[in-house]
Structures are given as C-alpha cells and as structure tokens.
C-alpha cells in the first residue's frame, strides 16, 4: 500500500499537495457535531477554496468505521490528503489550533 501511495505522490506531487481530502467523524446531530461541520466548512472556504473535499461520517450509522481510523473522541477530523495523515479532535471552534493541526498555516 505504501508503494502505491509513493507512486501516486511522485506522479502528481503538485496536484496532491494542493488538494485536501478531509473526513469528519461525528455521532448523530449533536451540538458539537453541528458546530464542527459548520466550522470546518468555514475554514475550508476561507483557506482552501476549490481544492478540498469533505466527507462526513456519522458513526451512529456506520459504527464499523470507527476502528479503521482509530476514532475515540468525537468529533474527530482526519486529514487524509495531503500526506501524512493527521488527526484533530474537537468541534473546530478554535480556528487557529485547527489551522495548525491541519498544517494549513504552513501550506499557505
């Protein structure tokens, strides 16, 4: 698996560095989940407009997915791309910390 990732990385390094694939884990429509979705959308629109994709996973519906990404806390945001994989927890209300955690500040 690492091999394919490495290959992909080589083939489209620039394109990938500029594309953000984010997965947000929530559990039902709790205030924290709703806040996290809203905060994430705002951050992405402000910082990564046009080069991001958000996938929201509701663990109440798909509990089996929690194991794969080692989810313990809710909400958890996983930066699947660009590599390396990063994980941040919380409702993303602390924007500065979210930007640091996602490495967006450095990326800009």
């Amino acid at each position, binding site marked *: 698996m690492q091999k394919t990732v490495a290959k992909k990385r080589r083939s489209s390094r620039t394109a990938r560095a500029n594309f953000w694939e984010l997965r947000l884990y929530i559990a039902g429509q709790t205030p*924290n989940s709703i806040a996290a979705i809203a*905060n994430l959308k705002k951050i992405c629109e402000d910082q990564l407009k046009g080069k991001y994709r958000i996938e929201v996973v509701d663990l109440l519906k798909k*509990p089996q997915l929690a*194991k794969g990404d080692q989810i313990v*806390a809710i909400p*958890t*945001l996983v930066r699947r791309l660009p590599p390396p994989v990063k*994980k941040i927890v919380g409702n*993303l209300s602390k924007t500065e910390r979210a930007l640091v*955690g996602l490495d967006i500040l450095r990326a800009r």
Partner: protein
Amino acid sequence: MSVPKLKTSRTPLPKASTGIDGLDEVTGGGLPRGRTTLVCGSAGCGKTLLAMEFLVHGAVQYGEPGVCMEFEEATEKLTANVQSLGLDLGDLIKRKKLLVDHVRIERNEIEETGEYNLEGLFIRLGHAVDAIKAKRVVLDSIETLFAGLSDAAVLRAELRRLFRWLDDRKLTAIVTGERGNGTLTRHGLEEYIADCVILLDHRVNEQISTRRLRIVKYRGTPHGTDEYPYMIDDDGISVLPITSLALTHKVSTARVSTGIDGLDEMLGGKGFFRGSSVLVSGTAGTGKSSIAAKFASAACSRGETCLYFAFEESPNQIVRNMRSIGIDLEPWIQKRLLQFHAVRPTSTGLEGHLLGMQKLVKQRRPSVVVVDPITSVVSVSGIYGVKSMLTRLVDFLKVQQITSLFTNLTFGRDREDRTEEGVSSLMDSWIVLSDGERNGQRTRGLCVVKCRGMAHSRDLRELVASRKGMELGEAMINARLASTVAG
C-alpha cells in the same frame, strides 16, 4: 485467616466466575456480575493476564463471550503474549467468542480544537459488544487515554459515563489501572469504580519475588481480606488462599506402617495414622533421609504410591545411598509407585514450591508424600513464610487423606533452632533422631517426642542402619546419649 463463606439465608450477590484457581474462592464466587471491577497494580504484576483469563474462561467455560478493548498492546502482541500461557485467543476470535479492539492514541497526532467527548469509544465498544453478544468486557488499560488527551475534566466525565454505560448494559467488566504514587491508580480510577477493587502487588524480598493479591473492596459481599500469594506459570494465574479449610477435614483411624518394625512397635504397634503429618528431625547424619526412604519404600511395597520431594539430593543419589543400607527404591520407581520430584529450593519462591507440590499431588494422587528436607526451603524464605506454607501444604494433604513425612535438619543445642518450634506444632507426630557415643563409637538414637491420638513409647532406642536395613535396638539407658536429644 479463613475465607468467609456466604450465608445462604441471604440473597447472595450474583457473581461471574473468573475461572482463575483460587480467585473465585477468595471472592466468594467471582466478580460482581453486571458490574465493573478495577484491577490495579504496578507494571508486570499480571493485570492484563488476569483480565484476559477472565475473558477466555468466560468464553470457554461459562458461555459468556467477551470484548477486550486493549489500549496498550497491539492485538497480535497480546495474542502472542497470552498464547505463551496457554490461552488461544486466535481461535476464540475466529469463533466469535472473543473480540479484541486495539485502541491506539498518540498524542502527537492529535490537536485539540474545541469541545469533544469520547462517543467514538462508546460506539466502538457498543459495536463490538453487539457483534458477539458479549457479556464480559475488559478495558486494558483505560488510563492510557489520559496520556493521549489533555482535557482531564472531559476524560473524567466521560469515564464516569462509560462505567455507568457498562452497568446499564449489565456487562461484567474489568478495568485495569497502573498503580500510582500513594494511590491505587495513577488517575484515580478507584473513585469511579465502587463495586470491587483488586490490588496486585509484586515485590522482591531477599532476591525472591513474591506476588500478592488483595481484595481492597467488594461491595455487598463478604470476602477474604488477607493478602493472598498468587503465581503466574504455564497455566496462567493461580491464587493461593492461605487456608481455605476450617479444620473440618475427616480423620482416619486407619494406620500405616513406618516401614521399620521397631518404630511401628513404639507407635502402638501399628505405625502412623493415615492422613497424618510426621516430622522427623535430627542433626546431620542421624538418618532422617533413611527413615523417609524406608517409609516411602514400605508404602510402595503395600502397592501404594509415593511422591518424594527431594530438595537436596538428586533421585539417583538417593537411590544409591539407600541401596547401601539395604533399601532398594529402584523397583518402585520402575513400577511408577515411587515418583521423585527433585528441585533446588532456591529455584523459585515459597509459593512456587507450594503450588508446584499441590499440582503434582493433584496429578498423581499419591497416598504418601515425603518432603526431604523442609530445612532447605527455610533457607530461602525465613520461618514465618515456611510455617504458613507448611500449614497450607499439611492442610491440603490432610484433606485428601495423604500421609506426609517431613524431614528437618537441626543443629543441636548450640544453635538456636526456630524451625523446630515453628514447625513441630503443625505436625501430628514428631520423631527426633539424635547422635551419641558409646564405647568409642558414634551411635544414633530415636525417640518419639509426640504422636497425637495414640499412646506411644517414650523410650530412646538405638537406630541401626546396616546393609540389612533399618532396625531399632533395645531401649538404651545411656545418660550421655539421652542428653543430646533435642527438646
């Protein structure tokens, strides 16, 4: 000292058997069913093993599938570790009797950006429990969360919620925790778990490691409050209740020959009571081992089995030495009536010896047991420990109506001899061998100091070991010899 028994007139708290030798005994039947038990102790004390045995025995023996949330070891590593102790997790996992979920939290991966809770953990646990219809749960060791997440207030609130969640679902759970400085667990888990707390302790005393288990609390049920020694060996954990019987064992009036005619004669003409304990003590070279061997040989010649624990000599050496005084043990060994078990006293701690002896006795079911000599064991662990170990061993043997003979090396009058006074009170019969001198020759004397429950001779008689075997001479009237008799 004894383990309290549940009174049947009250409704006993429902319990879930752990299947761990001895632990169910000291807890009066197991852990509180449908509740959470905290197992705490320092690193390497066997917390994880205890928890895994609880799950595996639950799945195999009691038809209760279990989930293990493992926060420390990866699943493969855990499987390999407990496999070495005879627990096959892989098979149970395949048969959906067991589910292990490895929860990995690495702080450097996680940035905290606002409010959160541990719903993810609840969902994972709930999903796992539902998947195999689990009745038992282990969280090992949930305190790792404190290292991974920084918001202690959130964690505490969530842990409280988690333990309530386990209670609501009527899951019997074990939560493990590392011992803290002056507290039972590092992060005070004991504050949340009110029902049952078990503390494991692993200490090293004069280079011998001993493990102790204590039930710190167990709400709603009487339980043993002592520190119980426990062992980890090839079969996993075993807890040794100090004395689990209350001197209520059956007593036999049947007699067994000592193998020496003269000695039988001194003991009312018939020998020891079956199932009694005998101490043979004396200074070096007075013939303790010879008496032990003669006793063993006599048992074998009656077609009975004998288990001989040798702490000082190898079986071959004993056989050779005994042959020189006309006791041939070889045929009994070949007929498998006599079995030697030779170990160095320093090879393990006292509990190790006790457990090993009990296991062998359970396997072989001998009618006679010889321990030669107990003094060697004293050298590794002091008189108090030996006495409590012997109490347990003697009780254990008596319950099974096994006649036991212990030899004990004494040092004569010059040296203080605490073994003897400590040990002799446990024994039903006490034979003292002594050393004397007559007409320029060393002679050996034998006298029966006590023999509970029978009239016995008070004579001091000469013990003669020749190529023809052990014999007792006529009663000696020799002041110098009598003066050296211990006691």
